[in-house]
């Protein structure tokens, strides 16, 4: 038993079980589901002009080829989770989860990528029953920061950035809950990173950001939270979320018919019309559309080579009329111009991957501590 767990036992008065420490990422590859089905379409028209058919943006892409690319920054976040011990509380036994959360931004200058910002955090996730006295999040925060301080003082091998709590309802799988909490922490760090870029004035007309994955951030009830949507919305004026994988059945046309067929039939360099939608759990409105980066015949399936693009509608005008169609065209064209080179042979998702995002992801992964090293830090 390491110093950290010993100190935790001392602080909580509970004797932990010695558990086989291991990484949880492989056994639970897709534990967190984001593309939920409760998406509510506000309107089929998420852009100023109404298009019933896909639009070819290859001409626009060609024009942009001779100019400086607008996407200069690439953000990715990832996390690794590990089970490091079990802790008994009353009659139940709960897992203690540790995580490494890496969030990085790479910037592109003269066609070469370099690191712009990077954060690597170590977190520990405990069951919320451990803090029975905390009645709300604010009270939990006090308990957790105090505990984090004690655990950091117990050793000098690493800095524990945060101690988190996962909810403990009887029917839940606690490991999944712990992992989901690490995931949420990662998303917070991503938002934080965007804030940092805005503060440094790095996001502007000539310097857009591609964020790997969705921009659908969970609704935050607490109005004091620094990441409450109204506070951060303006940050996303020059941010585009690009998802490699998506569930095409969840994309709907105006008549609530599936848009999967239209997406699958997209020709190279075509985009679907943008839709405007919102979901229950996510605050704000989005324009969402799909762009095919590569020919279908060279891909494994009909949706290979297609990326899902999201843009938060920032202004009141956008929320009402949708994103300017020329902006949708431009963003699509920029993405088409990002299609090469590819990470074929390195990543199975090469057809949907954007190379700078792939490099950012590779960079973040290269900074993680090795599993054996990490799990023995505790």
């Amino acid at each position, binding site marked *: 038993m390491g110093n950290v767990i010993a100190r935790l036992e001392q602080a909580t008065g509970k004797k932990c079980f010695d558990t086989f420490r291991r990484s949880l990422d492989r056994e639970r590859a897709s534990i967190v589901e984001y593309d939920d089905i409760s998406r509510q379409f506000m309107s089929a028209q998420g852009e100023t002009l109404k298009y019933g058919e896909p639009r070819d943006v290859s001409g626009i892409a060609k024009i942009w080829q001779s100019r400086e690319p607008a996407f200069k920054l690439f953000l990715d976040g990832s996390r690794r989770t590990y089970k490091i011990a079990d802790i008994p509380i009353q009659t139940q036994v709960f897992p203690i989860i540790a995580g490494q959360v890496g969030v990085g931004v790479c910037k592109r200058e003269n066609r070469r990528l370099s690191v712009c910002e990077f954060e690597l955090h170590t977190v520990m996730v405990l069951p919320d029953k451990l803090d029975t006295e905390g009645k709300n999040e604010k009270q939990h925060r006090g308990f957790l920061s105090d505990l984090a301080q004690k655990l950091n003082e117990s050793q000098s091998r690493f800095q524990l950035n945060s101690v988190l709590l996962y909810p403990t309802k009887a029917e839940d799988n606690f490991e999944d809950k712990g992992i989901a909490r690490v995931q949420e922490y990662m998303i917070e760090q991503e938002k934080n990173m965007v804030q940092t870029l805005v503060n440094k004035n790095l996001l502007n007309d000539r310097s857009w950001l591609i964020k790997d994955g969705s921009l659908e951030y969970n609704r935050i009830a607490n109005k004091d939270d620094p990441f409450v949507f109204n506070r951060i919305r303006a940050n996303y004026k020059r941010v585009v979320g690009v998802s490699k994988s998506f569930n095409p059945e969840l994309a709907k046309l105006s008549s609530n018919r599936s848009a999967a067929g239209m997406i699958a039939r997209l020709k190279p360099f075509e985009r679907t019309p943008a839709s405007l939608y919102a979901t229950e759990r996510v605050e704000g409105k989005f324009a969402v559309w799909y762009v095919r980066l590569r020919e279908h015949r060279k891909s494994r399936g009909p949706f290979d080579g297609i990326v899902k693009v999201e843009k938060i509608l920032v202004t009141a005008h956008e929320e009402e009329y949708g994103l300017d169609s020329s902006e949708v065209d431009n963003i699509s064209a920029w993405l088409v111009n990002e299609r*090469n080179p590819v990470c*074929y042979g390195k990543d199975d998702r*090469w057809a949907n991957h954007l190379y700078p995002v792939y*490099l950012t992801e590779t960079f973040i992964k290269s900074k993680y501590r090795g599993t054996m090293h990490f799990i023995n830090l505790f």
Partner: protein
Amino acid sequence: MSERIIGRVAALEKCPTTIDSFCFWTDQNTILNPFDVVVVEHLNESKTYGVVEEISHITDSDSFLAQFISNDFGKLDVSVNTDRIGMNYVSARVVGNTKNIYIPVQNGRSVSLGSKEDIQTALGLDEIKNPVVCGYLEMYSGLGEDEVDLPVYVNSDFLIGPEGAHLNISGISGLATKTSYAMFLLNALQQKTMADDSKKSVAYIFMNVKGRDLLSIDESNDNLGDADREMYARMGLDFLPFRNVRYFYPYGERGTVKSYVRPDVLERQMQSKQAKKFKFTFNEDNESLDLLFSNIEDPNQTIESIINYIISKQSPFDRVDSWQSMLAEVQNMGTKGIDKGNKEISVMSWRKFKRIVRKSVETEKMFNDDVDAGKGEVRLENEIKKLKADDVYVVDIAKQDENMQAFVFGSVMQAVTKLKLGEFDEDMTPEQRELVPDRIVIFVDELNKYAAADAPKSSPILRLLLDIAERGRSLGIVLFSAEQFKSAIHKRVTGNCSTHAYGRTNSIEVTDKSYSFVPGTYKNMMTRLKQGHYIIQNPVFHSLLKIRFPMPLYKQDKGDN
């Protein structure tokens, strides 16, 4: 002075750092060259020095297919916003450590360019005793202000003895400038020994085998460019051609010389008593007869028997005192029915001997028994006896056929060997003996004609050369030789050379076994070396060195013959 960090050591599972080598990564735009010295931080605040051997560029692409796909499945006009991530990794060979720590350098340690002092220490150029400049080193070329250039010195004890001796220069004709490099080195040697009286005395004999290459080496080179002048100045050499030069031309028809030398040059040299015409007389030079048969197979040693028969003055050769009378007696011996005294040598053998010897002795006018000193005529052996410190003898054999060239070269080697072995001591006064130089350097181009790997084992020239190669260091006879392909030279000759200079060669040559110690990149570089660039190997240097040298200081007459 540069100590700029250019990369970090990468020790991988599949490519670990070792006592002998290590790899490091650099930015793909960092310019480095093979032979550049790099410095790595090592334990106990020591520095490990490496010499760049190979530079590779890699990207994250693991297949050609990925490259093809990255161009929209094979389109040729695709432009990309992001260059594929790539970097260079460099393989370097360890050449030393400042505190003699030879455990492998450690992963992540910084790798930097070296300062001038670092480079000198790394390559073993910092503590050269008896230095003789052997070229000019340019390092980090293409790196702007980081570029370092410095003269390279070799320890003369390892060049002309006693520690090591003999130099071999190889390289293809025309581009490798073998003669120019040898002359540059010999000029530096002469300048050094003349400036430093206390050191050993050295004399030089050059065989001029091509055109007028070496027939004006005492005249200044008026075409020397500013860059070359600057290089000479930085190497500490004066702009002086060879001094104390004497030229020896083979005697030709009716008092002329058999040479490509320009008449005006010859006249000037004759007037200043610098030039002599050499002859071989039967009475004094008959011992060199065997040299006429250097390239002739003699499996039954019949030719050798005949030569011994003549030299030992067995009847009827006891009466012979001239080339003509020798030819007459040989003719006689080849005639049937004459009582030849010695029945062991057949008539056929005498006839064969006659055919060969007659061709040479009758057509070559230098076989002449009348040496008139008043007309500037000399015997080479006599002149070699007079060789003294700092003298330069140029023996011209350019216009002679191969056999005659071998004969003259062999005679010169024979005379030098005799001189150093003291065989002439009886004819010399104690004062003359005092003047015999400690070291005699013989330079000959086209060594392959005399010491080819497939030369007949009985070849007297090969025997002489092997003797010089193997015993010359202790005797004080040093061979500076040159040829196109080192692989074609007898291994015992090249094996005894302490210094090797490699000029531009061809790709077939570098695949030969004798180049197996040279790293692949260097081999390829050997096929691309520019004129005036050489790769040098000497026991004192920690690594092969790529050097350059300036145009010669003497007048090079490259005109048509």
